[in-house]
């Protein structure tokens, strides 16, 4: 596609120092350069599209020029109004308009504020550590499983119908999986909104670490005593399933 010839015309923007902060919305355009002479600031290297964009149009107290032969033509005018001052020192706009951080408020304590603990979808992939699986699926797999796949695992029955298996590597059966963060069991794909608070939450609700804190995606949790877990063996599954079917 042919290039627009107007791109070769250099457009400039003139603005006074007191209105300089209005340039903030075009600060991220990396092609622009800025220079100043006294209290007058110049921004150059606009393209035609940038000049007609909403960001530029909404800057108040600005003057737009096009530059030809060092003469400044007000934008849209055919007569030059002045010359560009010589010996201007051009710097990239980003450097010319540095960001200043607000001063820290030492009198602010915010003691009354509370943080709600929430789980949010996480970006980082974590290895699985726990699996909630239906008792029927588990017993069908375990009764044909190689001993080596069971030796690192422990389990307990959550409800009459489901079992929680902990350890790695987990069993190749379908189920909801969980990962471990300290003594927390978080649903796979979720993490605390503020992961740095993990230790604090643990100290608050589970200081002895005798329980697993079993989280749900909605942010609710329950405790499972670690001592209740039993090694996953074929006989333990067989006997549990047997007694479950007798009682029901």
């Amino acid at each position, binding site marked *: 596609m042919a290039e627009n010839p107007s791109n070769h015309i250099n457009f400039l923007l003139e603005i006074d120092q007191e209105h300089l902060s209005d340039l903030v919305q075009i600060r991220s355009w990396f092609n622009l350069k800025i220079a100043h002479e006294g209290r007058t600031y110049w921004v150059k290297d606009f393209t035609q599209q940038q000049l007609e964009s909403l960001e530029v149009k909404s800057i108040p107290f600005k003057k737009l020029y096009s530059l030809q032969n060092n003469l400044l033509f007000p934008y849209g005018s055919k007569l030059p109004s002045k010359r560009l001052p010589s010996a201007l020192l051009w710097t990239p706009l980003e450097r010319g308009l540095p960001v200043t951080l607000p001063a820290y408020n030492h009198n602010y304590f915010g003691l009354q504020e509370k943080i709600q603990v929430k789980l949010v979808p996480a970006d980082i992939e974590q290895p699985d550590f726990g699996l909630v699986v239906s008792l029927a699926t588990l017993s069908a797999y375990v*009764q*044909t*499983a*190689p*001993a*080596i*796949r069971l030796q690192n695992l422990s389990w307990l029955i959550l409800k009459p119908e489901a079992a929680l298996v902990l350890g790695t*590597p987990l069993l*190749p059966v379908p189920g909801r999986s969980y990962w471990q963060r300290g003594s927390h069991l978080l649903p796979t794909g979720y993490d605390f909104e503020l992961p740095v608070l993990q230790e604090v939450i643990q100290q608050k609700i589970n200081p002895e670490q005798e329980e697993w804190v079993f989280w749900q995606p909605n942010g609710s949790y329950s405790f499972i005593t670690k001592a209740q877990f039993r090694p996953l*063996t*074929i*006989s333990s599954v*067989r*006997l549990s399933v047997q007694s479950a079917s007798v009682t029901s």
Partner: protein
Amino acid sequence: MQHPFFQTIDTLRRKEELILFTRLMKVTPEEEDLVTELLALEYEKESLNYPFTPPAFDGPAALWGAQTVYSASQLLLYRENQAEELSFLLPAYSNTLTPEAVLSIDLCLRFLPPLLEQASSIDNQDALISVLEQHLQQWHYSAVGYDLALENLSFETVLSDNCLLQLYADRVIQRKSRRLAEHAPIQTQIKASLGHYASTFWSALS
């Protein structure tokens, strides 16, 4: 001491210690019944942990296994017999090889390889060793990890039963017997058991 043979097998099963209470090789039929009963209970407990459907208990086979271990330990400690008498004192098991027999015999025969190592450290030319090794050739499920010549082993019985095949593979993995793991008849089962995690569980087997 009323039932020395029963006592020996009982401690062997419960504490995995071999204690001889008398020098007597003779075993009364009454005691044989007691031991068979004990082994039947032990088998029931153990087979709860067997994968798939465990084969039924085979009483005579289990008794033969117990007697072989008992006689072998007697012969190791108090030898009064000639070498020629050994095969008479340690007869081979005459019935056919079935998965039931293999697993029932294993209840006691699994303690034979350590016994053999003991015997060969005393005298590795001992005639007892070759007699017992011949028994182990036949019942090689009990001898996984013990150095037997692979070409003489028959895997037909092992392959005929799901439960026994899985138990065999589990034992090979547990004892890390690399020679058996790379032996053709059961190699696929070993690989299937380790699955994706071969390098995690057994890094030497690549």
